[in-house]
């Protein structure tokens, strides 16, 4: 248990006003209470515009706030357009997955940081996409809201697709992250609860721990310190 206690946890996909019902400062307070070291406030809207989050409160001690955008697109050319437009504006670029074409476009674009809920339509990734995700450093998202928001048949379908994703990600060594995809502070869960759900999704305890701490940490590090030279090339030391 020592290693869990000494880890810093991050939740990289949390939605706030004006898209969803909680203000950024409320979300930050709640996330701090749940035991996180940082969260990413992700804009999500049909126009795919990033509305700068002006946080009206002093940042809590030992807490980091990142900005992001979750891009929703219905075809590849629009997806790439939105990705190019959002670059250098946000810390973390997330693509809203589910559609097979969009999943492929996201994992093949090295500027994307996270492919969010790739299994939301019940279709798992395949070996080609998992390998591309590993090569381009695009993290595959395991969103716990699939488990807490759905019940019955749809949950079964999504969960079995997610398990397949976990198996392939392990095989090809693609980065995995666990996010809450929270739409209000009632959707936030503590880090250990997220790990428990990650273990239900077919991860080992160790993988679940890394998916909440070191993997998000390295994504942030890579983007914040401008270590990225070009797609797939970054300064490690």
């Amino acid at each position, binding site marked *: 248990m020592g290693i869990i206690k000494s880890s810093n946890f991050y939740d990289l996909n949390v939605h706030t*006003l*004006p*898209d*969803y*019902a*909680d*203000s950024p*400062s*409320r*979300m930050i*307070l*709640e996330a701090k*209470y*749940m035991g996180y070291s940082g969260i990413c406030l992700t804009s999500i809207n049909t126009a795919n515009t990033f509305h700068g989050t002006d946080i*009206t*409160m002093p940042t809590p001690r030992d807490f980091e706030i990142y900005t992001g955008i979750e891009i929703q697109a219905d075809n590849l050319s629009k997806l790439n357009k939105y990705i190019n437009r959002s670059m250098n504006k946000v810390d973390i670029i997330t693509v809203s997955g589910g559609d097979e074409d969009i999943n492929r476009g996201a994992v093949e674009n090295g500027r994307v940081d996270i492919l969010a809920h790739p299994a939301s339509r019940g279709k798992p990734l395949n070996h080609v996409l998992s390998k591309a995700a590993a090569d381009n450093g695009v993290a595959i998202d395991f969103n*716990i809201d699939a*488990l*807490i*928001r759905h*019940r*019955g048949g749809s949950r079964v379908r999504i969960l079995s697709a997610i398990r397949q994703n976990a198996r392939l990600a392990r095989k090809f060594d693609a980065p995995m992250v666990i996010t809450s995809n929270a*739409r*209000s*502070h*009632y*959707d*936030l*869960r*503590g880090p*250990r*609860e*997220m*790990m*428990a*759900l990650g*273990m*239900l999704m077919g991860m080992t*305890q160790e993988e679940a721990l890394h998916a909440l701490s070191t993997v998000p940490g390295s994504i942030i590090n890579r983007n914040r310190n401008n270590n990225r030279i070009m797609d797939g090339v970054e300064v490690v030391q």
Partner: protein
Amino acid sequence: MKILPPTLRESNRYLAISVTSEGDIPRRDLVNEILFCAATLHGDAGSSEMGIRLLSFEENKGIIQCRMDRVWETRAVLATVTSIKGMRTRIKVLGVSGTVRGATEKYLLTQDINEPEPERKRTQTIKESRMIIDVGTISGEVVNRNNNEIDLLSEDPHSLEILNRSNTRYFGITVFDIKDKEIDV
């Protein structure tokens, strides 16, 4: 009749929990919801192995018993509780201990010294004075106030659409969001 000797008893863990909700949750509804979630997530056979029991529940804090080797599964079950009787609910596990006394003393009575987290009291319900506040994009009536955190009820169509999307009843804001207006509760 003789009681089962200690060596033959199941060994248990005790989870201290704290419940956040849009309204007051009676003990019975909480128990039913947790057991229902256990049954939907792990099935009847799986939940019988976990041995979940709610031992005490007062002032939105309680203790849950489960089998020693099923703590992770129990955490997953508690994480899937999203609403009780139509009110959005969130359960946070404060900590796990090997005895009821340990869980109570470590997690329910004392406060963490490292993090001076203000004590979470039951949210006050404001009935007498209607308070309307304006937070830039939304405005509405204060429903609950808990230290810096405010729940806001708003009924204009645009706000209702956002609330619907988020599946909540109230907007969650803080005192920091309110511009140049002081409110007292």
